[in-house]
């Protein structure tokens, strides 16, 4: 079971004051699939990604990536174990070029020695060449190769999201967490994004896709987990989840009450 499951989360709980944003969530994600996490606004999707990636630790629970316990590990350690992510609120490095943004993550697993940098040793220059080609490759995958020397802030919103995906890919992750990657994208851009996600799955990357647009994710996801008020209320194949009365209630019920 463990060698089949790349993410194993047990009892993940996160409180903000009195609010229980995640209420003992369990999650098992098999290797190499696209797993969607859906749920209404404020249901805890981002909080779950933050707990998995170490950006904001859970208060309790256990999280294993590829069998290794990562609970309370600092985010860069988790990144180096092969987990990469993007952000719902775009976080690009605005003082670096597009290429340099991606290079930051491409250097993920290469230790930097002051002396080799100062002396510009052969190994150092060789590493730089490798980092550069990994970064350009990642830009190629998302279709941003032509914007390598621009500043990220010169890119339209949708492309900044793609840049975040390229940056995440550059660290050669085995797990990729995407937090609402289609937000702010038009229909064509969203379709291209879905193609890209399918490509990544083809490369053997496990993708955890957070969305609140249910229709968008149904076609591409192998499994869907549904959060509501911090609890996992359903999980399974997209078609089953879509018919689940609890899910319909969470989405439609809420919408009707608010409307």
């Amino acid at each position, binding site marked *: 079971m463990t060698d089949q499951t790349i993410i194993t989360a047990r009892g993940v709980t996160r409180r903000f004051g009195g609010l229980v944003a995640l209420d003992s969530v369990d999650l098992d994600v098999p290797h190499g699939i696209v797993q969607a996490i859906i749920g209404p606004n404020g249901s805890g999707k981002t909080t779950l990604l933050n707990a998995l990636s170490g950006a904001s630790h859970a208060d309790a629970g256990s999280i294993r990536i590829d069998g290794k316990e990562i609970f309370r590990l600092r985010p*860069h350690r988790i*990144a180096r174990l092969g987990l990469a992510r993007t952000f719902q609120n775009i976080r690009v490095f605005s003082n670096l070029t597009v290429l340099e943004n991606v290079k930051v993550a491409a250097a993920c697993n290469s230790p930097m020695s002051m002396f080799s940098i100062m002396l510009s040793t052969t190994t150092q220059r060789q590493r730089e060449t490798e980092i550069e080609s990994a970064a350009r490759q990642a830009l190629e995958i998302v279709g941003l190769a032509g914007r390598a020397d621009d500043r990220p802030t010169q890119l339209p919103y949708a492309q900044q999201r793609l840049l975040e995906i390229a940056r995440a890919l550059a660290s050669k992750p085995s797990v990729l967490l995407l937090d609402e990657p289609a937000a702010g994208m038009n229909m064509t851009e969203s379709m291209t994004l879905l193609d890209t996600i399918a490509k990544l799955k083809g490369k053997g990357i496990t993708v955890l896709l957070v969305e609140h647009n249910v229709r968008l994710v149904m076609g591409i996801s192998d499994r869907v987990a549904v959060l509501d008020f911090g609890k996992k209320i359903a999980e399974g194949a997209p078609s089953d989840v879509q018919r689940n009365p609890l899910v319909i209630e969470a989405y439609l019920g809420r919408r009707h009450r608010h409307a």
Partner: protein
Amino acid sequence: MTVKHWFPLALGAVVALLIPAVTHDNYVIQLLNIAILNAIVVLGLNFATGWVGQINFGQAAFYGLGAYTTGIATKAGLPWITTPFLSVVIVMGASLVLGLPTLRLRTYYLAMTTIGFGEIVRLIIVHWEPVTGGTSGLRAIPGINVFGIGPQGQIQHYYLLIVVLGLAASIAARIRQSSLGRAMIATKDSEIAAEQSGVDTTRTKLIAFTIGAVYAGLAGCLYASSIRFISPDSFSGTQAILLMTMLIVGGMGSIPGCIIGAVGLTILPEALRFLGQWYLVLYGLGVIAVIVLAPGGLASLASRLPRWAGAR
């Protein structure tokens, strides 16, 4: 490297090398020497402040630690060649002691800690009179001497310091072009995104702070043994703020900006001396004008020049 890159560099180098041919005034050359040393210190400040975005008011104290270590050691009879190493060891130790506990915390913790550190260093210098000379400082510090060879006179010192500044700037440029430099700027732009990209941001901050301290410590070492006189005033809290002003006016994050800011703000007060007390007013207005009109510093104006030239 394109023409756009090497032309200003070559121009700067030619001007720098020709200055002693234009003026033999020892006073002017000595002022330039101090300006060059300040430029090295500001280049050091740029790592933690310009690139990583940490506010550091300890740079003058590291400058002073290097200078006093060198002054005290050489006056006690130690060979000069030991002093760069001694200075580096002491400032590295101090920067690690300051940085380790504070850098994992928020930006302003380092600001507060380094203000306190600067004050402690100043108090030690002022009150440990038998060793440091107290407020009157240390005089007649032995000069640079590497196995009997050393620069003689202001102009030789000037050339030596220009070479050291060139080295300091090129190491900074190399770091900027490496994964370490990118990690520094990523840490400033978004600490969490940097972490999630595999950057150990605490380590990156500590490295930037320590490299900066080493720049200041080495500049202090050269200050003591080329100016030959040091006093607490040169490394006070006021100096710390002045160094920060040089960085802001020159252009945070820009290597040429650091040099322009440091040289400009070292020379300007002397050039405006004929105005008497009024110089401070003009100086203050000038600094404000730069900050308001060119928020990216003087370097950001310079980078706009080629575009104007191209537009013609």
